[in-house]
Each structure stands twice: as C-alpha cells, then as structure tokens.
C-alpha cells in the first residue's frame, strides 16, 4: 500500500519556531520523518569573521534567545584560553550564577511547553508564572530579561551589589518550594504519566550510536555532563550532582530536567552565599595570538561546542558552532519510527529543540525503502506547501 506524506508546514501553532516536517506515515504509525529546518539560517558564522571581539559577542548571543548566555560564554571562555588570561574568581562565580539561572528559565519554559503539547494548560500557566521570578532576578542583575550581555573577554560587564544578592536570595526559597511541587507532580499526576510513559523510548546503545547529548542522553543512562568532565567556570568548587535516569522515554527526560532544576537552585544559592570578593575583569589585549581551541559548554539542551581558530588579528579566522539540537535530531528521527502521529509534538518537544541555535539542519534517511512511491496527501492544518518536488525512493 502506498505511503502517505503529511507535510506540517512552517507556520503552525504547535511550536514557536518555523520548521517543516514531512512525515511519511502508514495509517497511524510513522514510518519515517524528514525534516527541513533551514528557515532560520542567517549566516552568522560568516559574519563573525568580520567583526572584532567586542562586536562579535552580541552577534553570537543572538544565535538563540533561550540559550544566549551559553553561546557568549563558550566563545569568551575559548578566546580567554587562547590569550591565556586568568579570569578573576568573582567573575567566574557571577558567570555561573547567570548560567544556572538561564538553565532554570529554560527548563521551566520547556516544562510549560511540553505540558501545553499534551493539553495540560494549567501546568503551562504555573511554570511560566514561576519563570517570571527567575526573569526578575536576571533583570535586576543584568538589565534585560533575555540577552543579558554579561560577558566580556576577560570577565564580566557589571558587578553584583548586596541589594541584588539579597533580592535573589529571597526568591530562592519560593522557587525551591515550587520545584518540589513539580517533582511530586511528575511522580503522581495521572495525565502526565499516561501521555509521557512509554513514548519515544531510546535505549542506551541507541543514544550512544546516534550521538544524543544533554538531558536526552542522560535520560537513557548515558552519564555525560561537560560541567563535570571538563570543569569550567566555578563548577569545580560548587557541590552538585549529575542527574541521570534509566527510563529513556519522554517521562525519563522530564524527570532529568526537573532534577536539574533542583540542582540549579542549589548551585545558585551556594554561589550567592559564597561569592568571593575581588575584581570582576582583567584587561584583555586587542589582538589574540595565533591558536585554536575546541571550547565546550553544557547548555540547557546539551553539549555546545565552538571550534575557534585565531590568526593574530582582532577578529577570529573561523568559529564553527555545533549546537546540541543538531546532535539530537538524529535520535528524535529514530525515536519517532513506529510511534503514533498524535505523539509527534510530544516527542519532538521532549528533546527541547532550539531551531534558531541549529540554524542549519538535515536528517539523512537511514532506512531507505527502494521501490516505494510516495503520494502527496492533503495538507493538514498548514497554510503553506512544503517543497514542490515529488520523491521516488
């Protein structure tokens, strides 16, 4: 029987980002998934070669709106290592506080969006309301709710005064109590368990084979976290634990992310209470010496890697960005095979895709089935056609 292609076009109410899925389905089961995700390609890597170090940091921050501090920090960290600068400890602590607050706001955002995908709008409203507490803290510290621009080559842009520290510390118990409520909810709430359990399961071998990173991989039992394996910023001095799970399905990923929320709150509390005194930046030279580095960072979605090469001037020669969502897409394409069409939004949302980070993407089809003609079906709910060519495989 011929297979049916269902395109779900770039303008759709499910996700916030433009993405074009082409789902090849056999009845209600998915056979294969093809993704076309270059809608947000903007050409940032080429532009980064033409801007000096001061001007390239705001550009790299705006690769993605949710993990903006991650991109700026990993770049600044790499350039500082090439220049062999010693960043003062107070700056490292401030960067860690902002990084963990960003992780918290990203995971709360994800929890709300995943709940919205299964129709649990109450949880959507609750998590985003709690997220406002994190946004207020970030706004007090840096001046903006998103795109904080706290990094400079050599340290941090602005300092924390005691009033800000006390205001942040007063919000931490409130957040801890709300997160405890979410932990209980994910263990007991029937709606969540029914929709998340058993959906999109991925074993540990598959997670390793297809290169999954971040909470997606940790939910399948792969014990890999860049903050512990290759410590940077202040993570070597703060007591914290890596959260893993053995379930491997969307439920496991939910549990890993809520566990990471709990850990992040404790890291923020420790850093705010024990922040060392001192300067917040060192003077950086204008030009970087010739060198190269692979700089890695644990973004909220997984491992982010920038490969930077410098050539002695005040601009980089090349910055090559590998985002965690790019590494996770193959695994999501594998998880979707033989699942129901109605579970697509949940499974795709479970890897927490950040398509503007990715800004370039493709999935190679691993199970080519020769001799099957593909028939174009009526569009369902999308206003735009996908690409116009028919495919014979």
């Amino acid at each position: 029987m011929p297979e049916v292609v269902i395109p779900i076009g770039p303008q759709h109410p499910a996700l916030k980002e433009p993405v074009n899925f082409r789902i090849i389905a056999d009845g209600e089961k998915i056979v294969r998934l093809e993704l076309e995700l270059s809608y947000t390609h903007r050409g940032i890597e080429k532009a980064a070669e033409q801007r000096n170090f001061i001007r390239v940091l705001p550009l790299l921050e705006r690769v993605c709106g949710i993990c903006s501090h991650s991109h700026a920090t990993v770049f600044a960290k790499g350039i500082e290592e090439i220049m062999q600068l010693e960043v003062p400890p107070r700056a490292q602590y401030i960067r860690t506080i902002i990084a963990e607050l960003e992780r918290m706001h990203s995971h709360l955002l994800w929890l709300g969006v995943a709940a919205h995908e299964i129709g649990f709008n109450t949880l959507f409203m609750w998590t985003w309301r709690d997220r406002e507490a994190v946004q207020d803290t970030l706004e007090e510290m840096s001046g903006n709710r998103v795109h904080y621009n706290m990094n400079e080559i050599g340290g941090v842009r602005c300092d924390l005064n005691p009033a800000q520290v006390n205001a942040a510390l007063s919000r931490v118990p409130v957040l801890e109590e709300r997160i405890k409520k979410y932990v209980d909810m994910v263990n007991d709430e029937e709606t969540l368990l029914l929709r998340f359990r058993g959906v999109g399961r991925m074993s540990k071998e598959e997670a390793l084979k297809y290169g999954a990173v971040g909470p997606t991989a940790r939910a399948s039992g792969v014990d890999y976290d860049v903050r512990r394996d290759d410590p940077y910023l202040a993570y070597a001095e703060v007591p914290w634990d890596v959260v893993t799970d053995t379930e491997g399905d969307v439920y496991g990923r939910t549990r890993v992310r809520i566990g990471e929320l709990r850990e992040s709150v404790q890291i923020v509390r420790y850093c705010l209470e024990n922040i060392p005194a001192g300067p917040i930046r060192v003077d950086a030279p204008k030009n970087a010496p010739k060198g190269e580095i692979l700089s890695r960072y644990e973004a909220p979605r997984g491992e982010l890697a920038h490969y930077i090469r410098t050539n002695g001037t005040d601009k980089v020669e090349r910055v090559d960005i590998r985002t965690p969502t790019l590494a996770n897409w193959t695994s999501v394409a594998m998880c979707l095979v033989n699942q129901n069409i109605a579970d697509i939004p949940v499974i795709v949302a479970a890897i927490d895709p950040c398509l503007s980070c990715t800004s370039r993407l493709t999935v190679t089809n691993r199970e080519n089935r020769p001799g099957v003609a593909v028939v174009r079906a009526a569009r369902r709910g999308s206003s735009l056609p996908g690409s116009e060519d028919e495919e014979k495989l």
Partner: protein
Amino acid sequence: MAAEKASAAYGCEGLPGDTMTGPVTIDIIKERMKEFGLTEQVHANRVLVKTVPGKVHDAIGTLQTMLGCNRLITISTLDNGETFELLYHVIGPHRIIITLEIDLPRSQPTTPTVSDILPPAGIYERQIHDLFGIIFEGNPNLKKIILNEDWPEHEYPLRKDWKPGPDTFYGGIKVERSEGN
C-alpha cells in the same frame, strides 16, 4: 573535586569487545595512532593527529575499537587559502579528545565518508557540503538543505573568496548588502 568524581563515575575502561586493556593515556594513543600520522598534545586533555584523507576511515575504526572512543563531537571545517582543513573530534569515556586533521586540496575537495561507521557524521557532512562544497563520497544523501532551495549551484558561502555581489539575485530577491556591518 569534580575531577575525581568524574573518573570514579566513568572509570577508564573501554567498551565491550575492545582489544584494549587497562586505562587509556596519551602515550597509548600516540602508540596506536603511529601508523596514521603524527600525534601531538595541544591541551591538557586534547591530542591532535595529522593524517591523510585516505586513512580517516581506518583511523576512526581504530579509535572506536581499540581506544574506546564512542562519540563524535563535531566535524569542523576551515578554509585557509590553499587547502580546506577538516577536523574530526572524537571522545570517549576516558575524556580525552582526539582530533584527526586532514588537508584537502582546493581544486579537488573530496574525501570518503565516515557516516557508515559513525552515524552522527551524516548530518555534519551534509551541512559542510552545503556551505563549503566538499564532496563526501559514499554519503547517500548529499542534497541541499541548509540554504534556500533557490540558492544557485556552486556558490559556497563560507569559502573565503565568496562575496555576495551587488547584482546577484537569489530566488528573485535582490538585496543590497554591506560588508562588515
């Protein structure tokens, strides 16, 4: 403190089926990689192996079976005027990053694919083909995906000598561009 926790969590053993015994250190890597090229240590936990395009496939096979590397971090590409440089970064439970570096001549940028033994490489190779024009032989799916479908053929934006001209049209849209904006 975290480093001890890390090594306790991982151990330094390889994968089942490995022909390697004992923990992996930089000297063992230098020993095993001798047939492929010169190894040097560039950072505290990273080594660089310079090799030739024909040997990359076997090198990655050796890394997987004999040195316990089970993940590909990324494939980076560089255009340095005369050649293209391709760098494959792999890592395993031993937490040492091994980078394989090859040079491709500008007039003939082709190299065999590694996506049959390392499935994540398929994505990175397809993206590099779109942006640089490097051809990976054996990759089943080298279609254009990251750039607009009306993008003209043989225009590879990330090469150093590519500049958008004022009179080039892409998909019927003509835009004024300014450099270094």
